[in-house]
């Protein structure tokens, strides 16, 4: 992977897709379709964020759904107690507070041990929710106060936030942060000795990641209607995020976004049409793609020797 990542060749097709998606509702789509497409967009954005901050830095955070779910809870909790504008503002620091817990191992651990440690985080959410039911609603979760009633408006909000997230990521790709993250992945010790404040970079990227996830979860929780601990379940979100970002050229916001949307679509299709083969199909697909990548040596695969 080169260090200069901005490619206008990527921006143009992305713009085409997003423009196409912005006229879709005019075709008279059903509210189901709009809801599904909203989730598709938001999931694509979640995958791009994951891809940028974790795949790029080589810190494979398997506790990503902890951030996703705690952001959802932050929004639900603040909306329950505060007027809308204030609630949305307050949700960001609140979700930062939650996700500090997952920042600490990032500062101290590396490689596989970091991944293993973070994998446990999503599992801590359910016991915590059960212990403080008046805050988290226990096993049931809590209602998210509706802000937009029309699925079309919700769709446009989702689209806007996805575009916002993607633009931000594209801007970040051109900054030194992206380069620093890639250097940390390549050799952290070397990065540190060549004057990169590794700890500062990590904290900064963690903060940005959490804020962006929280922004995405605002429309997401509007669609789901309820924030519950199920959102922390690694099975769909984390696995599909890893799948999507690794499909082709890890570290590219565009492919992750497209991959995320495609996998969510496939998941929805299988839930309706072939639920008993969902796991087999998803996992075989993943293994086939990886095997093909290794055999064909497609770009982005870092298999040495």
């Amino acid at each position, binding site marked *: 992977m080169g260090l200069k990542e901005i490619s206008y060749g990527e921006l143009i097709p992305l713009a085409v897709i997003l423009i196409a998606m912005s006229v879709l509702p005019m075709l008279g789509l059903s509210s189901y379709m709009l809801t599904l497409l909203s989730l598709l967009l938001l999931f694509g954005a979640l995958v791009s964020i994951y891809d940028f901050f974790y*795949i790029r830095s*080589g810190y*494979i955070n*398997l506790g990503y759904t902890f951030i996703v779910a705690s952001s959802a809870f932050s929004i639900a909790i603040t909306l329950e107690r505060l007027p809308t504008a204030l609630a949305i503002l307050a949700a960001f620091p609140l979700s930062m507070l939650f996700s500090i*817990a997952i920042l*600490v*191992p990032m500062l*101290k*651990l*590396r*490689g*596989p*041990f*970091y*991944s*293993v*440690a973070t*994998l*446990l985080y999503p*599992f*801590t959410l359910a*016991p*915590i929710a059960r*212990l403080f039911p008046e805050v988290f609603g226990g096993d049931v979760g809590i209602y998210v106060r509706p802000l937009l009633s029309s699925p079309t408006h919700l769709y446009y909000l989702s689209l806007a936030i996805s575009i916002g997230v993607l633009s931000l990521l594209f801007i970040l790709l051109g900054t030194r942060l992206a380069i620093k993250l890639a250097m940390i992945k390549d*050799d*952290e*010790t070397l990065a540190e000795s060549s004057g990169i404040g590794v700890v500062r970079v990590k904290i900064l990227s963690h903060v940005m990641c959490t804020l962006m996830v929280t922004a995405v979860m605002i429309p997401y929780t509007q669609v789901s209607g309820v924030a519950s601990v199920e959102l922390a379940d690694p099975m769909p979100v984390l*696995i599909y995020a*890893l*799948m999507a970002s*690794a499909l082709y050229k*890890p570290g590219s916001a565009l492919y992750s976004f497209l991959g995320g949307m495609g996998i969510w679509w496939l998941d929805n299709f299988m839930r309706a049409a072939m639920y*008993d*083969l*969902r*796991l*087999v*199909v*998803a*996992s*075989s697909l*993943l*293994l086939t793609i*990886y095997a093909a990548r*290794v055999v064909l040596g497609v770009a982005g*695969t*870092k*298999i*040495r*020797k």
Partner: protein
Amino acid sequence: MLEVFLFSVIVGLVYMLMAIGFNLVLGVSRIVNLAYGAQIILTSYIASTLLNFIPAVVALPISVLLSLVIGAILWLVLWIFRKDLILSIVVSIAVALLIEGVLLKIYGARLISLVIAPGDIMGISAQWIIAAISSIASLLAFYLMMSRTMIGKRMAAVAENEDLARYMGINVRVTSMLSFIIASLFASIASIAITPLYAIYPHVGWYYLTIVLAVVIVGGLGSAMGALASSMILSFTQSLAAYYIGSPAKDLIPLTILISVLLLRPEGIFGRGVRWA
């Protein structure tokens, strides 16, 4: 009170038996094998099917053997992807999902029963005793292997510094494969000794994996003593809290231990304090 103590020791041993293979592979090959829980559950399903047709004396060794073969294949897959951490983790998850999906397709989501040792000895169920004995035997075998045999020393060398080990003429690939097959052996022993004590359904592999991860995180990486100690710590705190503290707050204790270890000493209580690159 004696019962509480005794059972805490047994449960601790069981936790250790579950974690030991995962720890070995992580330490030697630096492969995060998240399919480990699925491997455990797979042996149970193979054994439960074989037991319908052939007696246990034949069925159990065959299912262990089959699991070792599957383990070797799994190693091959993970080895190919190992240089890229992302890929190896995702692939191990994909394998775990594939195993779960196939089991779901064949057996359905229903709980199945696997009874290997019915009855009890002096008021303790035979399955517990088998679990405890296999744990102790595995721990001993593990210790002897690591300290007395050439293979063990090679593994330790590879775990310590892979490149150095390679310069010294150790075949890293073979050593890694051996560590993986031995881990699969531990997984299948755990499967036969422990899964009858727990529930058996396709999704339960993830539950085993969380126990394994908790033990590894609290104890520290690659250290057998750490695994033993952390298994005992987790088991004893659970039991003593359940006996002495009736209130719901007791359930926070294992979680608190886990989180405080993660926050204060993320390399684990017995970890070597080495940050991994």
